[in-house]
C-alpha cells in the first residue's frame, strides 16, 4: 500500500511540475507575446492618464493632452478633429489607439528608446512622465483646402506630396469623424459613439487601415501610365510608335469586347500615337500593348511603382497593398491594362506612381513625421528623405511627363491647367459595374519641368460629369495653393 501511496505522490508532483512549467511559460517565455496582444489594454491603461506628447502641424497642436479630471490627470484632445482624424487616429481607453497615436505611441507616451535618459531623469527628479511631441510634414492650409474640396456627403480622398522628398503635404478623406468622441474618458459614451460611427458607410473603426492609405479602388485609366512605362521599357515601342486604336477590341477567348469611350475623341482615328492615346485616354491602344507585352511585363512594371509592396517605414500609417492580380487570361489582361477588373490601388499608390514619374523615375519614401522633440523641445530625430525604389529610367519618366503635360494642355485633363505653369496630369474613370457610377481620378504634378507637388484626387461613386468637375479643377486649386506660397 505504501508503494501505491508513493506513486500517487509522484503523480501529484508530476502535476505540479506541469503547473510550474505553465506558469513559467505565461509569465516569462510567452509574456512578450501576451503583452503585445492588441486586446491587452494594460499598456494603454498604465499610461492613459499621463501627459502625452502633442502631434503638431504648422506649429499648432492638432492632438494634445489637456488637463483631465482628478482621477485621470490628462485627457487627449483633438483640436481639428475631422480634418486630421485620418492622420492622428484616436487614443482611447476601451478601443486601443489608431493612426499616429498608435504607430508613434511609444514616442508620444515617452517610452521610446530614444527617450530612455529622459525617463531616468524623470524617475530621479520625481517628475511626472511626459511624452515627446511629433511635428508633421503637413501644410495646414493645403490640408484644409483639400478637405474642403471634397463635398460633404461625397466619398473621396486627396493626397498631396512633394515628389522630390516624399513629404506628405496633405492627406484627407471623407467621410471623416471626430476622434474626441472615442478618446473621451467616459467609456460608455465612447462605446456608444464607436458603435454609431461604425454605422456610417465608409467608416470602419475596427479596421486600422483606411482612407488614402487603405482604400483599395479600381484605378481606371491612370493605370495607363504604367502600361506606357512598360511599353517604353520593353524596347518594342518608342515615342514615335503608332498604336492600333480600333473603336472596340475583341477580347481573346471571350465573346465580349473592350471599347473606347463612346463619347470621346478616340474613335476618329484607327491608329494613335502615345501622345494622342494618353491625351484622349483611349482604351484599345493600351489593351493592345498589354496583350503584346504579356502580363508579366505589366505586372513587373506595376511592382516597380509599388503594387504588391508597401511604401516603407517612414509614413507611420498602416497601408493596404495595391494589387495587380496573378494568372490572368488574355481577356482579363486587356481589361486589367486599363485599370479595370481586379486591379486595385490606394490613392497613396497612385500618388507615389505619379511622384516617381515626376522625380525622374526614383520613388521617394512617403513621410509624415518631420521631427520628434523631447519635452524640453530638443530635437530627438529629424527626417531625412530616402529613395525607396527606382520605378523607371529618367528618359522614360521624362517622356511620360511630356505626354502627361500635353494631356493637360490639349487633352481631357485640361481642367487642371494652371496659367503660367506647366502641369502634367492624367485622369481616370473606373466604371463601378453597370451602375453608371465611377471612381473618378486625377493624378498629376507641377511644374512639369521642376516638380514640386504631386496631387492625386479620387472621388468615389460619381457620374461622369460631376466626376470631371470634382477632380481636375480641384487639382488646379491645390497646385495654385502650393506653388503660390
Amino acid at each position, binding site marked *: *500500500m505504501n*508503494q501505491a501511496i508513493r506513486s*500517487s505522490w509522484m503523480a501529484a508532483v508530476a*502535476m505540479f511540475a506541469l*503547473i510550474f512549467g*505553465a506558469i513559467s511559460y*505565461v*509569465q516569462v517565455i510567452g509574456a512578450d507575446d501576451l503583452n503585445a496582444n492588441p486586446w491587452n489594454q494594460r499598456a494603454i491603461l498604465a499610461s492613459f492618464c499621463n501627459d502625452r506628447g502633442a502631434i503638431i502641424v504648422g506649429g499648432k497642436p492638432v492632438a494634445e493632452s489637456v488637463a483631465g479630471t482628478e482621477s485621470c490627470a490628462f485627457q487627449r484632445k483633438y483640436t481639428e478633429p475631422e480634418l486630421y482624424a485620418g492622420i492622428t487616429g484616436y487614443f482611447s481607453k476601451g478601443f486601443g489607439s489608431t493612426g499616429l497615436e498608435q504607430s508613434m505611441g511609444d514616442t508620444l507616451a515617452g517610452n521610446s528608446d530614444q527617450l530612455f535618459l529622459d525617463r531616468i531623469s524623470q524617475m530621479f527628479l520625481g517628475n511626472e512622465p511626459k511624452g515627446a511631441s511629433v511635428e508633421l510634414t503637413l501644410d495646414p492650409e493645403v490640408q484644409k483646402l483639400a478637405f474642403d474640396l471634397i463635398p460633404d456627403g461625397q466619398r473621396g480622398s486627396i493626397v498631396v506630396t512633394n515628389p522630390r522628398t516624399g513629404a506628405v503635404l496633405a492627406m484627407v478623406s471623407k467621410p471623416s469623424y471626430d476622434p474626441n468622441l472615442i478618446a473621451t474618458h467616459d467609456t460608455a459614451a465612447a462605446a456608444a459613439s464607436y458603435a454609431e460611427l461604425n454605422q456610417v458607410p465608409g467608416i470602419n473603426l475596427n479596421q486600422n487601415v483606411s482612407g488614402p492609405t487603405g482604400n483599395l479602388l479600381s484605378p481606371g485609366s491612370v493605370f495607363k501610365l504604367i502600361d506606357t512605362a512598360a511599353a517604353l521599357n520593353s524596347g518594342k515601342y518608342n515615342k514615335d510608335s503608332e498604336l492600333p486604336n480600333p473603336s472596340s477590341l475583341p477580347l481573346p477567348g471571350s465573346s465580349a469586347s473592350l471599347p473606347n469611350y463612346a463619347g470621346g475623341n478616340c474613335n476618329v482615328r484607327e491608329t494613335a500615337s502615345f501622345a494622342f492615346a494618353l491625351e484622349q485616354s483611349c482604351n484599345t491602344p493600351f489593351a493592345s500593348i498589354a496583350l503584346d507585352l504579356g502580363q508579366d511585363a505589366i505586372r513587373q512594371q506595376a511592382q516597380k511603382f509599388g503594387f504588391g509592396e508597401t511604401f516603407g517605414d517612414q509614413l507611420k500609417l498602416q497601408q493596404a497593398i495595391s494589387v495587380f492580380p496573378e494568372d490572368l487570361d488574355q481577356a482579363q489582361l486587356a481589361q486589367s491594362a486599363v485599370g479595370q477588373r481586379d486591379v486595385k490601388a490606394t490613392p497613396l499608390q497612385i500618388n507615389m506612381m505619379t511622384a516617381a514619374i515626376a522625380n525622374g523615375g526614383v520613388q521617394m519614401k512617403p513621410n509624415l513625421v518631420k521631427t520628434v522633440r523631447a519635452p524640453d523641445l530638443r530635437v530627438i530625430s529629424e527626417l531625412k528623405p530616402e529613395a525607396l525604389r527606382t520605378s523607371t529610367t529618367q528618359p522614360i519618366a521624362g517622356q511620360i511627363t511630356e505626354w502627361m503635360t500635353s494631356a493637360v494642355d490639349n487633352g481631357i485633363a485640361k481642367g487642371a491647367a494652371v496659367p503660367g505653369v506647366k502641369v502634367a496630369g492624367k485622369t481616370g474613370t473606373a466604371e463601378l459595374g453597370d451602375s453608371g457610377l465611377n471612381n473618378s481620378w486625377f493624378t498629376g504634378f507641377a511644374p512639369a519641368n521642376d516638380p514640386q507637388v504631386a496631387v492625386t484626387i479620387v472621388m468615389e461613386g460619381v457620374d461622369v460629369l460631376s466626376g470631371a468637375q470634382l477632380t481636375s479643377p480641384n487639382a488646379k486649386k491645390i497646385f495654385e495653393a502650393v506653388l503660390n506660397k
Partner: protein
Amino acid sequence: MIQTETAPKPRRNVELALIVLALAVGVGASALVSINSDVGLDRDFWFQSSLLAVAAFAFHMVLRLRAKYADPVILPIVVALNGLGLALIHRMDGPGDDTGNNQLRWTLIAMAVSIAVIWFLKDHRILRRFTYISLAASAFLLILPLIPGISAGEILGARVWIRVGPMTFQPGEIAKITLAIFFAGYLSSNRDLILLAGRKIGPMQFPRFKDLGPMITAWLVSIGVLVFQRDLGSSILFFGLFIVMIYVATSRISWVVIGLLLILGGGFIASQIFSHVAFRIDSWINAFTPEVFGRSPGGSGQIVQGLFGMADGGLVGTGLGQGRPDLVPFANSDMIVALIGEELGLIGLFAVVMLYLLLFTRGFRAALGTRDAFGKLLACGLSFAIALQCFVVIGGVTRLIPLTGLTTPFLAAGGSSLLANWIIVGLLLMISNTARGPVDTTPMVGKPPASSSAPARKPTTGQTPSAPTEAVKHQ
C-alpha cells in the same frame, strides 16, 4: 520512511515558530494592501490581523493538548495561505465591498470547526464506523442544490449552491470529505476481496465485474454532478479522488487504466452533449480567436485577461496593490491565482505553489506513517484531492487545461471551500498525529484488543501492502 528508533518528538515549538513566520506573510501582505490603498494601518487592519493571529495560536494550543505529535508544518502552511488569501481578497474589495471581512469570518468559523473536529473526534479511526452514513450524507449533500426551495438556483451556469438564510453554501465541498471517508472505509474493509479475485489479461490483472461496484458508483456520482449540477471541476475532482483511493487500496494500475478510460469516455460524451462542457473546451483551445474572446457567456475573456495580468506581472510582479487585476473577472475567487501572478510575480506564485506542494506532501507523509489502512486511504485521498484541485485551478488559469470552476484551497473567496479545506486539515493533522506519535495500542472503544504482533517502528515496505501493522485492522 524516515522513521527511526528514537522516541517520537512532538515538535510543537517548531510549529509555533513557523506559525509566527506564516503570520508574518499574511499580516505583512495585509499591511502592504492597507498602505497601498491609502487608508494606512488603521484599526480594521490591527483588529483583523489580531483575530487571525489569535485563531492560529489557539489552534496551536489545541494541538498541544489533543494532538501533540501532529505534523508541525501543516498548520503554518495553511495559516500562511489563508492569511495571504485574506490580504488578496481585501485588496480586491472596492468601497463598500465586504468580501474581505466575510472571508475573515468564515476563516474563524472554519478554524473553530476544525478545532472541534480534532477536540471531539480524538482519533480519525472512529470515522470508519460512519462509512455508510458518509455515503448517505454525500448523496444528500450532492442532491441538496437540486431541491427547489433550498437550491440557490443556477449561478454562473452551475447549480452547486444552496441558500442558508442570507448566505449561499456549496455542499459539494463537504461532500468531498464524506465521499473520501466512505471510500476509505469501504476499501479498507473490502480490499482483500477486490485484490484476490480477478482475471489476468496480459500483464494486468483486471477485477471481477461485481467488484467494479465502487468504481461504477464513483463514475455515476461524477457524471451525475456533471449532468445535474453542471460542475465540470467537481466532477473531475471526485473522480480523481476515487481513482487514487482505489489504486492505493489495491496497488493495481489496472484500476487507474479503467478509471482513466471511463473519465475520457465520459468526458468525450459530455463534450458532445452538453454545451457548457463544449464551451469550456472551445474557449481553452481557441482562446485567442475573436469570436470566442468576445462570446458571452462561455467565452475566453476571463482566461485571456488573466493571462494578460500574469504576463504583465512577469518575474517579480507589479507589487501588491500596483497591478490591474480589476480587469480580470473574479480576480478574488476563481482567478485569484492570476492575481498572485500579476502582483507577486512568478516568484510569488512559485512560492505559493510550493506551499501547496509541501502541504500535500506532508499529507502523503501522514498516509505513509499511519498504521491503519483506513487512515492511509483517507490521508492519501484528501492530500491528492488538494493537489488535484490546485492542478485543475492553476492549470485552468494558465491555459494548461480547460478552465473549470474550482476554488483555490484556502486562498479563494468562499466560505464553503474554506470550511471544507480546514476540516481536511484537521483530519490530516489527526492522522499525522497517529503516524508520528507512539504506537497506539489501546483498544478502540467496543473493539477487541489489537494484535501486538506488529512491531511499531518496523519500516513499512511496499512489498507487503497488507502487512499486519494496523492496530485496528483485525476486528
